[in-house]
């Protein structure tokens, strides 16, 4: 690594990228080998030493304190201090000011540094995570999939920051599954496979296909294998759905065999909408209609009974029971169908899990493996397979490929297409615009809790969608109507 370099680290899910950076930043101890910083041999036995050595890390799994404020989260462990008599005490006012400065340098002005992190959306938490790493004044900044939870606009901002840091001479290790980002940002790229070093190249010397074959050992011809399907009758229809604050008078429909993409900025209310339909946060008013019949959805159980499945956006806290086995996770949503008079049918459960592992190519040595021991991408595959097992009529997927490597991504995309062609109605929420554009038959755009635009596949261009996402809310109907009183 040289100062001012952006060095990308690539590899499939489970290739060992996160593990490598955790070794570098002192979380794990290496079994052997050596590490040099400024030519000097170093060995960090804990993260504090690494931080003192100027290495700041943004980990893949968010690591924040939900009950503490944004400012405290940013400065935990190295709060600005002030001398009072003989002792040094935490300087709260400076902390607030500096937190604001850091956020401002990231062009973030809408985040109150005294809010509790627990009340923030995933996207905002990711921003806090970045600010936290920047607060260390690092010489080496390691970012493990920082953009996985970000929307385009945030990604652009983040890139600006990265470039800024590069100019300041900070060396950056950048992990991402989005190849585009690598080509846009990185100077050099290293590929890992199964924990082994495969090779390092100058970015200008390689092509995406070349990188993919280095990572996967083969080439992938189509990342968005969209099948043409015949779109049938409406399966899911939503009318005037209200669930304040982030679901305002939403109406749309999804037809059999159709993939509807839902785009929007962070916090535009897409997840909220999905969770309302799924009954996690039941609607305050409005109708959910399934196959022509109005249904009542008061909790996820109701939704599942009617054949609605939801792949949540945060696999760690929402999608998986990480301390349980793959088998137990895959069957969790369909246990009722796997029972004989209330008892779990173990052979059927094992078959289901084995099938899931095979179908999605989950890298695990056995269905009995704990999910927490899988790499991030493989965990994501487990969530997807869990909901596929429920054989839904409507599948809502919230960021289905977050943190998934290209190979698996193509896999999941192909699966989505296949499911649609089998007549499933799919609502896909994604912050990755190419994914939305590449996979959807129709694109809906959400902003501030409302659906503000709808594009057919042929009209859905990057510019159209982005401008609908970003447009200032200036229409007269931006004022909430008293429709909330309805019901």
């Amino acid at each position, binding site marked *: 690594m040289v100062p001012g370099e952006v060095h990308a680290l690539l590899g499939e899910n489970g290739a060992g990228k996160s593990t490598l950076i955790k070794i570098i930043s002192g*979380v794990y101890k290496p079994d052997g080998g050596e590490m040099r910083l400024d030519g000097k041999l170093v060995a960090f036995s804990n993260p504090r030493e690494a931080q003192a050595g100027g290495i700041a890390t943004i980990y893949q799994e968010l690591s924040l304190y939900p009950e503490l404020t944004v400012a405290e989260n940013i400065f935990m462990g*190295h709060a600005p201090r002030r001398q009072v008599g003989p002792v040094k005490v935490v300087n709260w006012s400076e902390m*607030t000011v500096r937190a604001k400065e850091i956020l401002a340098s990231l062009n973030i002005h809408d985040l109150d540094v005294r809010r509790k992190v627990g009340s923030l959306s995933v996207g905002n938490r990711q921003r806090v995570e970045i600010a936290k790493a920047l607060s260390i004044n690092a010489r080496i900044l390691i970012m493990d999939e920082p953009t996985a939870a970000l929307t385009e606009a945030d990604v652009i901002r983040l890139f600006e920051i990265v470039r800024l840091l590069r100019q300041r001479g900070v060396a950056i290790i950048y992990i991402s599954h989005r190849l585009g980002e690598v080509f846009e940002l990185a100077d050099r790229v290293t590929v890992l496979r199964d924990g082994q070093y495969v090779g390092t190249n100058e970015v200008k010397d390689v092509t995406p296909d070349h990188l993919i074959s280095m990572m996967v050992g083969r080439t992938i011809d189509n990342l968005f294998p969209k099948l043409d399907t015949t779109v049938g009758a409406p399966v899911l229809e939503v009318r005037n759905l209200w669930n304040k604050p982030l679901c305002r008078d939403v109406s749309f429909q999804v037809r059999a065999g159709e993939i509807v993409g839902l785009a929007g900025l962070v916090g535009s209310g897409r997840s909220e909408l999905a969770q309302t339909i799924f009954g996690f946060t039941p609607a305050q008013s409005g109708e959910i209609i399934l196959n022509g019949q109005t249904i009542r959805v008061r909790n996820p159980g109701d939704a599942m009974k009617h054949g609605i499945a939801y792949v949540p956006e945060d696999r760690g806290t929402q999608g998986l029971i990480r301390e349980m086995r793959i088998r137990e996770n895959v069957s969790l949503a369909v246990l009722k169908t796997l029972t004989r008079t209330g008892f779990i049918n173990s052979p059927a459960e094992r078959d289901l899990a084995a099938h899931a592992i095979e179908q999605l190519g989950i890298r695990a040595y056995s269905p009995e493996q704990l999910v927490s021991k899988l790499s991030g991408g493989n965990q994501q595959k487990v969530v997807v397979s869990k909901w596929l097992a429920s054989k839904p009529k409507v599948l809502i997927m919230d960021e289905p490929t977050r943190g998934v490597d290209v190979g698996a991504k193509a896999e999941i995309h192909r699966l989505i297409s296949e499911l649609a062609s089998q007549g499933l109605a799919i609502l896909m929420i994604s912050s990755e615009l190419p994914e939305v554009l590449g996979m959807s038959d129709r694109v809906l755009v959400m902003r501030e809790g409302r659906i503000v635009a709808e594009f057919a596949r042929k009209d859905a261009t990057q510019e159209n969608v982005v401008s609908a996402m970003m447009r200032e809310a200036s229409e007269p109907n931006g004022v909430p109507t008293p429709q909330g009183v309805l019901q």
Partner: protein
Amino acid sequence: MTATASPVTRPPVQARSGGFLSRALSFLFTQEVILFLVLVVLIVLVGSANPRYVAERNFINILNGNAYIAVAAIGMSMVIISRNIDISIGSLIGVLGTLSGTIAINGYPIWASWLVPIVAGALVGAVIGFLVAYLRIPAIVVTLGLLSILKGGLITITGGAWITDLPSDYFLAQMKSPAFSFLGLNVPEIPSPILLMIILTILAAIWMRYSTTGRAIYAVGGNAEAARLSGISEKRIIMTVFIINGITAGIAAVLWATQLSIIQSTVPAGLELQIITSAVVGGVSILGGIGTTVGAMLAAILLSAINSALVFINISPYWFRAVVGVLILVTVLADRLRRQRNRASERG
């Protein structure tokens, strides 16, 4: 304002979201302020029913007689904030109090009988901390075991013999301190338990808010994994927290032992529940990461004031505990509703 608030108000930086008014309002409804208001309401109501309740002496007595619980609740709230618990604390106080008395009647200097229990408490705390932090046994398990060990061990060793004939200068808790007279204030002499309680609470509150270790306790309780990644040594923090808890237990034990001319060398029954209840009613979240020592102290005072008030307003003692249970429940529910309201307003 967040639950990490402490008596020291934060710098008044104007917030982008939420006006000054809502901020002021949310400060008004921190757990500490609520507890204080409940206390005031209680005093006014009971005082108007029976004016002797508000007599200065009664109040001093209530505080004096229960200060040891409040002192122990300081350490306990730190333990709970770090997402641990100590259910052996009642037994520990019994053992340390007996230790203190034993030292005093065996001709050692009085200061030793006050100091040794505190040091011994710190040592026991270190042992608990070691078992929890390094051998990774959950704190509830360690202290459940320790509770039995201390309780049984105390009786095995003392045979239940009371300690009497204590030297007359031993009774720390009965001494009054002219602490404020040098400030030229016309404050009556304050009994030392109350003074200690106030000083320790303030010190702890400041330490929890302004020291990096104090902040790290919140971090470890809030998200231990994240704390580790921020370079905070979880093990060291857990050790620290239990050692402090041992120290406050030692101080509480000395206050407990020096209150009366007899030391009953047994474990005060149910004391651990009183202390834990004080901490949680004081707003310390059992899930870690939230709470203040001031709240814990206020809750300890409130609970003892309630106990005394029930006698004053002639509630049948047969129904005492039911009333106390309802009151705890009401306090906790009120706190819950407040938090839900706050969350709703944060979202809206």
